[in-house]
């Protein structure tokens, strides 16, 4: 049954994963996402699932691989430095074609950095910190409700492609309280139903079939190339099927902002502020960061003067914005970093300066 509640972001995210059918959770404490393992430790067993506090994020991601290769749904969460440790497992699971859903409640970096919200994991999430030719779809919610919906929807997406899927939400979303409508619990599948849906899952051959192997090693280069081309076909389908974005008055806008997550909420207010000063501005809000929603940029009116990548990072998304804009408009950057979050007034003021310089 759907349920409306006022919830803290992190707890709502954990509940969304449980309602989505995640059976196993492996985690390690790190701020600002600690409410997630805490919530899972209390709640998951009530739904027949298992919680394990791993000895490290490295262990957590490998436990996730082990759990998920049996066909059961696994949820993982961490924050920036913890996600850095998980890169080995992400690359491995892409190669072995094992689905998991993982959530990064990101904070400021590099290194240990700080514990305030950041978006500087953009490159790590979208370009991959692990080795090899692989991709992970990355969804970037802008509210607690949207996070809940994206986590819930990510579970069947991961299953469909047999690939990890990441939700990149910053510390602000994890820590804020917002009203949410929680989705209903997905029907629990029996072991037999799971195996029928996921014939690749390991469960013991039961003396009834050939033994099965889940692998990542391909010593013969021609075999590895063929495997990578098979993976690339999946990534091509993702590029076609997954891009998602929201667009706000880009028709007659002088300025088009590009912003995701928490930053997009600030930009929305900056747009209102600019309007009172007689400047029309619009917003492209990528909801998928990979695949990057390039089609959104075809909707920009030719009269637009400038596209501004607006980030809690120093121009990481701007690289993708530039590539999507493909020289049609000047691309500029407004950012704060290290856990600093700009006010809408600050964004509006800097945008105005950029516009005046271009005029």
């Amino acid at each position, binding site marked *: 049954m759907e349920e409306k509640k006022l919830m803290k972001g992190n707890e709502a995210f954990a509940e969304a994963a449980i309602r989505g059918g995640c059976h196993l959770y492996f985690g390690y404490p790190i701020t600002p996402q600690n409410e997630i393992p805490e919530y899972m430790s209390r709640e998951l067993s009530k739904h027949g699932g298992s919680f394990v506090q791993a000895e490290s994020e490295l262990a957590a991601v490998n436990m996730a691989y082990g759990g998920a290769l049996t066909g059961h749904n696994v949820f993982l969460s961490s924050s920036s430095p913890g996600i850095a440790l998980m890169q080995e497992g992400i690359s491995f699971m892409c190669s072995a074609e094992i689905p998991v859903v993982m959530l990064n409640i990101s904070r400021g970096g590099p290194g240990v950095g700080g514990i305030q919200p950041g978006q500087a994991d953009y490159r790590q999430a979208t370009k991959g910190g692990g080795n090899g030719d692989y991709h992970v779809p990355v969804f970037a919610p802008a509210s607690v409700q949207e996070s809940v919906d994206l986590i819930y929807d990510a579970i069947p997406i991961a299953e469909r492609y047999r690939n990890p899927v990441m939700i990149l939400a910053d510390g602000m979303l994890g820590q804020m309280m917002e009203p949410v409508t929680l989705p209903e619990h997905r029907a629990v599948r029996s072991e037999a139903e799971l195996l029928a849906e996921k014939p690749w899952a390991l469960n*013991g051959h039961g003396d009834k079939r050939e033994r099965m192997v889940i692998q990542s090693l391909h010593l013969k280069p021609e075999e590895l190339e063929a495997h990578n081309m098979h993976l690339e076909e999946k990534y091509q389908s993702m590029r076609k099927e997954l891009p998602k974005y929201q667009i706000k008055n880009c028709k007659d806008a002088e300025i088009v902002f590009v912003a995701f997550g928490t930053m997009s909420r600030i930009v929305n207010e900056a747009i209102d502020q600019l309007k009172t000063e007689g400047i029309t501005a619009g917003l492209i809000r990528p909801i998928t960061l990979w695949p990057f929603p390039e089609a959104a940029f075809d909707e920009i009116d030719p009269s637009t003067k400038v596209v501004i990548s607006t980030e809690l990072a120093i121009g990481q998304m701007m690289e993708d914005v530039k590539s999507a804009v493909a020289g049609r408009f000047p691309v500029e950057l407004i950012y704060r970093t290290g856990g600093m979050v700009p006010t809408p007034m600050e964004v509006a003021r800097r945008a105005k300066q950029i516009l005046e310089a271009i005029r």
Partner: protein
Amino acid sequence: MKTVFEYTRGMRPVTTTYCPGCTHGIAHRLVMEVLVEKGLLGDTIGVSPIGCSILSHDYMNVDMCESAHGRAPAVASGIRRALPNKTVFTYQGDGDLASIGAGEIIHAAHRGELFTTIFINNAIYGMTGGQMAPTTLIGQKSTTGVDGRKKEISGMPLRISELLATIDGAVFVERVALNTPANVRKAKKAIEKAFTVQQMGLGFGLVEVLSTCPTNWGLSPVDSMTWLEENMIPYYPLGNFRCPEEVK
């Protein structure tokens, strides 16, 4: 005619690619014989991490997955939590378990995870061509210690069984060797007990198997057996370190 020896159906009818005189083949067979005799073959999932034995899944007739270097105990923990009624084992080398995966094995033991680890100690990194392992003996030559291991530089070789036996969750720990037929029989007994401990839900079990690596030791298969007996066993004493009452 009476059958005195049969090829176990626990092993797939293929030829292994292990070097002549390598004991991986014997260890594989013992594990698979135990699973067949216990009627567990169809209900078992094995984890083969990086190392020469990553290809054990080509030979062992059970469902298996590979794991990243050292992470098999974490992977096995995940499998076991997902499938509480199945049998799970890891089959790990000494570089894998005692070096890069030292954290994972200690914490799997510490949680008392219900799986069995077969720990192949050949005192060297096999797959990558004979580099020093944490288990390489003092004076033993390796490609990253051509003059032999020195205590001042690399410390003393790590005794994993003794270390794990201090952890409450590791309820079965035994060190065996594959150098003589009698020791091979004892090894099988230990492996059998380790799986019984898992079946009974008593805790984590590990069997350390002193093994040979003629290629990287630069010895003939026969001389390797002698070297194991004369050098490894004195430093790595055979025997049981922990065993629950129920399986004694």
